């Protein structure tokens, strides 16, 4: 078993075994015997051997973080992204305000207005990342898959205002082609189609 | 020249330290200055080329004062000043000062009159350690052994006093037993 399988396997009972615990010494004599036994049996030295061998093998697992980075799970909840429609490049956000409502740390605010076609559009969209706890409710609740969590997890900043405005989160128009359909947190499940009840069409 | 400077320096330091020890109301100050004073005393031994005694002074007294620290730690809050119920009387100061002065005079008089002679002068051939050893195990053998026996007795007594219920381990006791003890 490897990777995901290991975690999905719930049938682990066969791997259990009983650890033998020797009785705790009660009298001083028993304690002394145990000290002698443990000192003369090379327990302490085995400990030393293990660490020394590990050092000599030099099997290093460190990842030198700023230079090297671990791959991030697609379901990771990083800095938010506002997506555009892939074909037209229009903003996906319809300004429904569900994210604003559901946000448990109350850090999302949007301003909306009707545009010239009579559609509702968000004129401004902010997330106060100083308060955001990256719970992902906003991405979960978004009916348009417009707000999603990006992969970016380095969000230390010198100024609070950074990352907070719509322009910072919105996919730039020239990078529309790089925008991927979001598979991660909040996206519909693969079985979503099956769950929809069909409406009759009379025409 | 160095020796004179060192002597007066350490003498002054020692006196200051002990004055602090006596006058301070804070246990921590008192003990720290006591320990410092003891160590400064060892300097005199070094100045007199009695290295062994000097080191013994350091080891013995630092250990002894450490024990005092342990007691201080257990008995009082060493960061706070101790409130003394009996205010020192002037007569006590006066008398103890006079006695100290008297002692100094008594000890100084023979030196001033230049009539002191060492009964057992230092011999350069043998080392300091050996000299102490020889004196201890010849002339002062009986007092040394008596002192050793007394210390042994004190130690045994201390162990017996302290060892009541030493075989009982709180960590190994069953809850029920602890409750029983509590009920008693």
């Amino acid at each position: 078993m490897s990777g995901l399988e290991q975690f999905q396997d719930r049938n682990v009972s066969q791997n259990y075994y009983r650890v033998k615990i020797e009785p705790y010494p009660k009298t001083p004599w028993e304690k002394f015997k145990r000290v002698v036994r443990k000192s003369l049996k090379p327990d302490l030295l085995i400990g030393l051997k293990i660490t020394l061998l590990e050092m000599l093998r030099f099997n290093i697992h460190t990842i030198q973080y700023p230079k090297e980075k671990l791959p991030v799970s697609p379901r990771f909840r990083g800095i938010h992204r506002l997506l555009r429609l892939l074909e037209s490049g229009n903003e996906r956000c319809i300004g429904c305000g569900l994210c604003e409502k559901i946000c448990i740390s109350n850090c999302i605010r949007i301003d909306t207005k009707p545009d010239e076609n009579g559609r509702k559009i968000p004129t401004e969209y902010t997330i106060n990342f100083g308060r955001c706890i990256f719970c992902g409710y906003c991405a979960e609740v978004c009916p348009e898959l417009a707000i999603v969590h990006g992969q970016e997890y380095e969000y230390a900043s010198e100024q609070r205002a950074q990352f907070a405005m719509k322009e910072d989160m919105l996919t730039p128009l020239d990078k529309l082609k790089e925008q991927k359909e979001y598979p991660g947190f909040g996206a519909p499940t693969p079985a979503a189609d099956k769950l929809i009840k069909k409406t009759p069409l009379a025409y | 020249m160095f020796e004179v400077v060192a002597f007066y320096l350490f003498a002054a330091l020692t006196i200051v330290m002990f004055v602090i020890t006596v006058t301070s109301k804070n246990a921590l100050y008192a003990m720290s200055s006591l320990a410092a004073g003891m160590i400064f005393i060892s300097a005199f031994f070094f100045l007199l080329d009695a290295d062994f005694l000097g080191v013994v002074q350091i080891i013995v007294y630092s250990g002894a004062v450490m024990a005092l620290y342990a007691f201080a730690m257990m008995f009082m809050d060493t960061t706070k000043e101790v409130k003394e119920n009996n205010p020192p009387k002037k007569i006590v100061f006066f008398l103890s000062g006079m006695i100290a002065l008297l002692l100094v005079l008594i000890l100084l008089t023979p030196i001033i009159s230049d009539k002191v002679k060492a009964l057992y002068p230092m011999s350069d051939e043998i080392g300091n350690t050996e000299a102490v050893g020889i004196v201890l195990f010849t002339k002062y053998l009986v007092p040394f052994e008596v002192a050793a026996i007394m210390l042994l007795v004190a130690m045994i007594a201390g162990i017996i006093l302290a060892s009541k219920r030493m075989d009982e381990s709180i960590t190994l006791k069953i809850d029920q037993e602890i409750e029983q003890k509590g009920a008693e």
Partner: protein
Amino acid sequence: MSEKIKITIDGKECETIAGEYVLNVARANGIFIPAICYLTNCSPTLACRLCLVEADGKQVYACNAKAKDGMSIVTITENIIKERRAIMEVYDVNHPLECGVCDQSGECELQNYTLEMKVDQQHYAIKDTYRPVKHWNFIHYDASLCIVCERCVTVCKDMIGDAALKTVPRGGDKLDKSWKEQMPKDAYAMWNKLQKSIIGAVAGEQLDCTWCGECISVCPVGALVSEDYHYTTNSWELNKIPAACAHCSAACHLYYETKHTSIENPEPKIYRVTNEFHYQPLCGAGRFGFDFENRAKRDKEAFDRAIKAFEKADTIIFDSYITNEEALILQRLKEQRGYKLINEDALRLKTFMDNYSLYSGQSLYSADVKDVHESQFVVSIGTALKSDNPRVRYAFNNAVKMNKGGGLYFHPIKDPVIESLGKTVVPVYHKPLREEAALYFILQEFGNKEKLPKYIVEYLNSLMVTKTKEEEVEVTEKVVEVVEETVVDKKTGKEKKVEKKVTKEVPKKVKKPVEYKVSALYDMLDAPEDLMDKLKKVLSKAQKFTLILGEDLYTHPRAKNLAKLAGLIDRFTDFEVMLIPPKTNSLGVALICDLDEEGGEYTIGYNAKGDFVLSALGDGDLDMPALNQQEGTFTNIDKRVVPTNVALPYEGYVLNDLAKALGVSDKEYTIEFTKELPQEKGYKPIDFDDLPNEFFNDGTEHRGYRLENKKVNLSRKNIEPIAELPEFNGTVIYRCEPVLQFSPFTNKAHQLRSKGKLYASETFLKEMDLEEGNKVNIQKDNITITTEVELDDKIGSGAYVGTFDPSIDTKSLFDGYRFTEVKLQKV
């Protein structure tokens, strides 16, 4: 009143009166019956059919079924559940899934009932029809969201009286007959109707109405929304602040709905106003004129100057756009520092009420708006009802529509809105200054002649004149005719014509002069003599009568005599009398303040002109909070002390701060004065925080408390007869506000902002040879005011100017009376 009966709903015994709708009984008793289309106080439309219940084993609609004694109602049966679910499914057919952006989302009845009926699947379908969005001035109508419950149509007709909306054909596909077998009966019927219609304007593309916006309020879905509010926020983000409307004396209950202005600006802003439409309608000024706040900061220097001015001054002039508590502070200032208090409107009302009391025996007038709603006959004298107090007009209309009642409307200016209320409402367009005659007319026609003081009866009799008129009389005449008859000869069997003389009695109409007696009052009022005949049918059934009196009377040169007559009417006729206080809190000021007639030398104006001006409009020497930034109480037309709350924060100084600095007030907050309002005037010692502000389920108003009506000793002096007043000869203009305006405060609101003009009817324009947009000089004595002319199609004659624009100095044009004679000159 109607007899009390008992009915059982779902096992609960409910007491009610006979003839009440089952739905209302259930609501009053806290039993839930779903209904979308029914509106309290309006006629049932039976559009939604959700309120289906089983009465004594028969399915009926609760909104339509009247309660009978011993009736047993079951609100839920298996069939009803099926029907309701099918109905909700039908409503969801082709309803756009744009809840995300819809303004109603979160308070949408379609959403609520879809969930309530557990609709999770759609069984029905039909081809959708293109339904374009319509922009009706303040109102945005998204037809595709409309479920044609007709609440807007109903409320416009039954409550407001504009009847500007109706259902129009949708142009959609016809429903396939096969659905009829497949679906429950009521759902099919409802769908059939729904698929055919949509809401539209009665005439043309634009609405012809007074822009009350009540249709926005009643719309259960997001089809009708305020254009200004459209897509600016979500309803659930808003804080609802219950308050009283500050624009007119109705002081209607409303909610200011606030939220932070924008992301950058955290200051709260009012996004819209909503009301409890089931219990109280709201006019357009209240609904759209909400942002009249005064955003001022603390200005210590101005405050110090104000204190100095107060020390110097001897007079305070103020208007009635203040709370009771502020009025009390002013009164305290007068008591302790000797200022003279000047408020013309309130003083006139006070004088009128005092004289009225002398003859009615009561300190306050007798009727309130609810009485108007319940009346079968309503008379209005001396008020331009539609703009002076829209809620009274709605009540008038409601009474006419729902109680099959009628009324009389005495006013010099023709009003098509009143005329359109119904045939049973007869307008009497008399000349100005003839209001006395109108009151005598009421006594003449409705007074109990046996109880009325003798001198009045005698005077009325003396007014009777004998007139002749041509009347068609039916006379029978004997006529001899020659008739040709065909007779069959018996013998020959031949036909034979025979001439015969026949005498007949034939009825014939003949014009003949007839003498009859009629009161001279008809002529004085230019009233049609058959007036009472038109109302005969209504009057025969009428049980409750209400007389509405307006500001024309208080400003009338003979106001005192008018007041006395009104007092008599209250006592000796079936009428209950209601006075319309001219401004929001005129009644409160009249009761609380001890007003003076003449001012002194140095005046402080509070929202009025003076040497030092305290202003809530933000144009004075010291800023004061506007009424949506204050908490306090108003004394409204219902003689009720209603609380209002702070919708927007105010950072500057308030009147109480001044009073504190002058050593008159020892209170920290203005509302601490609420319990100190004068009890001898009928106020009660109740803390502001203990005042309720809500409606109960059965529609009872539970806001604040009602003033106590005290007994007053009657006067024994005779009332004077009608005085001959000099008639107006030249051009007469009226002082009145256009619809949607009341004061400079409404004019401050961004949706209603407009410039003051001379509003003229079409006939007036023709007479004066003017056109819309022309500039005219209005001249009186040596005052000339230049303004633009605008056509107002909501009046049938005459012209008026408003006081809402302070740049037009109307005060100098009108010396008291609301009509004045001026010279008009085209510029």
